[in-house]
């Protein structure tokens, strides 16, 4: 009996969902289908066996997706969903690919063959240039650029590359390290600083003084653009000591590459056409994201369910009871408040919807959905919007974000981002128009 084949044919899909700017509708459709099918959502490419991209443009995240794809262990399948209406069909196709035995076996043996080829190529190179994985060139590179830009050992691992593929060093699958080492040698061969052996050919972490004046290792971690429960298109580069943020930089990942928030068209002149993108559905979407980040998937899942019902045109009276039970539990959760109290505090002078701490913001979201559900009884609630300049709020949020993150633990940093949930889609909407029209 071919037990392995038998089990392979019963592999359950574990999709890792990546959303690009403008892919929100598709993501909502995908998340709804995953929920209804009971598919377990992977939190990283390494856990996944299916890679799902929700993006309106055919290319644009290719580099990220290719890197992630390298890191999905076999058996594996990938799909790119452009139109939300195709989500079900494309997920079906991907699930079918996943259990196509011949295809998966060929894929796995091709990867092994590739890995072997890369390894031998690497050996040749090493024999030619220097010994094995010796990283003196890289050490030189560190000294050259002082401690500030040196890449710590942990920066080079492939996974941080997976979930957060915008690593300066790039993510590499387990089997194609060779290329990485070679480029490091090629690029810095001139700076031979000595024969110091580095573990696995990776430079050691650099050190700097922390907030207490102690010399501590620095880690460079990039959050986004491929990260669960994270605003599409947002990239935050962090310098960590321990898990405390020392430095933070914000960038936006568009289909044509990375730009700084200052280059985005939104917010500056007030794109009034973007007023329409904020309603109860969007608020529940932000709430489910915050709840998942806060480690309360059960409540997050209910929020997704309510969101999907509203988006599908449910009336207030249909969802009101469920919503009330859920919102009461969330609002009364001391543990949730305990997690979000006092972090991400913003004062006056900013748009009203950003003010206060993280707790104040999610409570405001709840109150807004409350209000939407307590009026209008038989209209579909999902089509109601609030007149507000979402783009400028997002722009402001991005401007203040680095200052809010510095000095916070990683856990708090993620909650702060989730509590602001800047709408990058709205921020870059003008840019997309300019690109399509021009």
């Amino acid at each position, binding site marked *: 009996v071919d037990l392995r084949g038998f089990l392979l044919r019963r592999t359950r899909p574990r999709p890792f969902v990546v959303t690009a700017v403008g892919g929100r509708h598709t993501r909502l459709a995908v998340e709804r289908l995953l929920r209804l099918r009971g598919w377990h959502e992977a939190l990283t490419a390494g856990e996944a066996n299916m890679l799902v991209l929700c993006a309106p443009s055919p290319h644009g995240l290719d580099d990220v997706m290719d890197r992630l794809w390298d890191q999905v262990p076999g058996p594996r399948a990938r799909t790119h969903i452009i139109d939300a209406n195709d989500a079900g069909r494309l997920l079906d196709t991907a699930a079918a690919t996943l259990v196509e035995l011949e295809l998966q076996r060929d894929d796995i043996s091709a990867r092994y063959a590739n890995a072997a080829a890369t390894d031998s190529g690497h050996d040749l190179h090493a024999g030619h240039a220097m010994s094995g994985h010796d990283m003196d060139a890289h050490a030189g590179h560190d000294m050259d650029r002082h401690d500030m830009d040196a890449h710590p050992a942990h920066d080079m691992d492939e996974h941080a590359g997976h979930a957060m593929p915008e690593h300066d060093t790039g993510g590499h699958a387990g089997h194609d*390290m060779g290329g990485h080492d070679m480029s490091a040698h090629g690029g810095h061969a001139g700076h031979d600083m000595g024969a110091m052996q580095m573990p*696995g*050919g990776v430079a050691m972490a650099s050190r700097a003084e922390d907030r207490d004046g102690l010399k501590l290792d620095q880690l460079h971690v990039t959050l986004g653009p491929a990260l669960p429960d994270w605003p599409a298109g947002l990239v935050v580069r962090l310098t960590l000591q321990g898990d405390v943020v020392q430095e933070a930089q914000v960038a936006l990942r568009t289909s044509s590459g990375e730009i700084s928030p200052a280059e985005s068209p939104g917010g500056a002149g007030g794109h009034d056409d973007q007023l329409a993108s904020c309603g109860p559905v969007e608020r529940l979407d932000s709430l489910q994201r915050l709840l998942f980040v806060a480690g309360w998937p059960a409540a997050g899942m209910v929020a997704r*369910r309510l969101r999907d019902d509203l988006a599908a045109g449910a009336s207030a009276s249909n969802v009101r009871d469920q919503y009330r039970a859920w919102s009461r539990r969330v609002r009364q959760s001391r543990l949730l408040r305990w997690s979000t109290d006092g972090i991400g505090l913003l004062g006056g002078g900013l748009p009203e919807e950003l003010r206060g701490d993280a707790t104040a913001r999610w409570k405001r979201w709840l109150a807004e959905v409350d209000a939407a559900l307590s009026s209008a009884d038989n209209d579909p609630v999902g089509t109601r919007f609030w007149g507000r300049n979402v783009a400028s709020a997002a722009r402001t949020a991005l401007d203040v974000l680095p200052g809010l993150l510095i000095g916070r633990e990683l*856990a708090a940093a993620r909650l702060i981002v989730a509590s602001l949930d800047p709408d990058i889609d709205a921020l870059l909407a003008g840019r997309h128009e300019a690109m399509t029209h021009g």
Partner: protein
Amino acid sequence: MVENAPLWSALVAPVLLAMLAWTAAAGSAALSARAAGLPVRPGILSTPVWQATSLLVQQRRTTQAADTLLWRLGGAAVAVAATLSVLVVPLGGYAVSDLSVGVVWFNAMEIVVWAALWLTGWGSNSALPLVAGYRFVAQGMAYELPHMFALITAGLGAGSLQVGRIVEAQADVWFVVWMPVAFVIYLLSALAMAFWSPFDQPLARDLGGGVAVELSGVDRLVLIAGRYLLLAAASAMAVPLFLGGGGGPVLPAWLWSVIKTLAVLGVLVWARTRVPTVRMDRFTEVSWMVLIPLALVQALVVAVIVLVR
């Protein structure tokens, strides 16, 4: 009252523990399905099986400059420690080995988990698992002292660290009745030692799965299964410590042990749906300023009662 079972029981105990763990996983899947608005059918019982087999046939991954040996050992050690810890837990009137220092044995096995989880985070040579590994070290610092005081309180009530003696001492009154604070602290720390919600920060979603970020295939399966085994082991130990072991009317002792264990396990699994993750940087303070003093006062009260009685 509690006797040593024959040697072959050492092979049966892991099987029983695995069945408990599977029950917990199935229960967790059922609760998730309910939150997702799906009907909860009997078929949900097979969900953990298919999730496990899907991982079994998945390729294993490796990372650059990983400390492979320690990394893989770490994951496996969670399951091994959980299995070893139940050797002293009696089922009805029998334990695999009712050691004279059974409580210490149990405690020692769960300390193995500290090392195991930290090694899993550290061994992959990756930033996020490393952060998650340290989160568990911090968590250990927070829960372990109150936990040990809770264990000691039960031992104090019986005047022995032998689990069988502790069960005997509850023939009239269960310890949960006169040491409720210790029981609650034990349950909290059971959640924390199994890094189960709300103490699941080491595996948290905000880090893409924490120490498990780099794990795939059988390596991930071993860690996740180990976590359920730990949760089951901690539930099983609550019964002889605080709930009178196999004591109860009508039904045989072994069945009472099973029923009580399932009840505790059910509460722990269900807790996940009711609370968000506790941030360890906030919990540590509460643990040291509130839980430790409470645990000490509880121990003092029990000590006075034992002396006066």
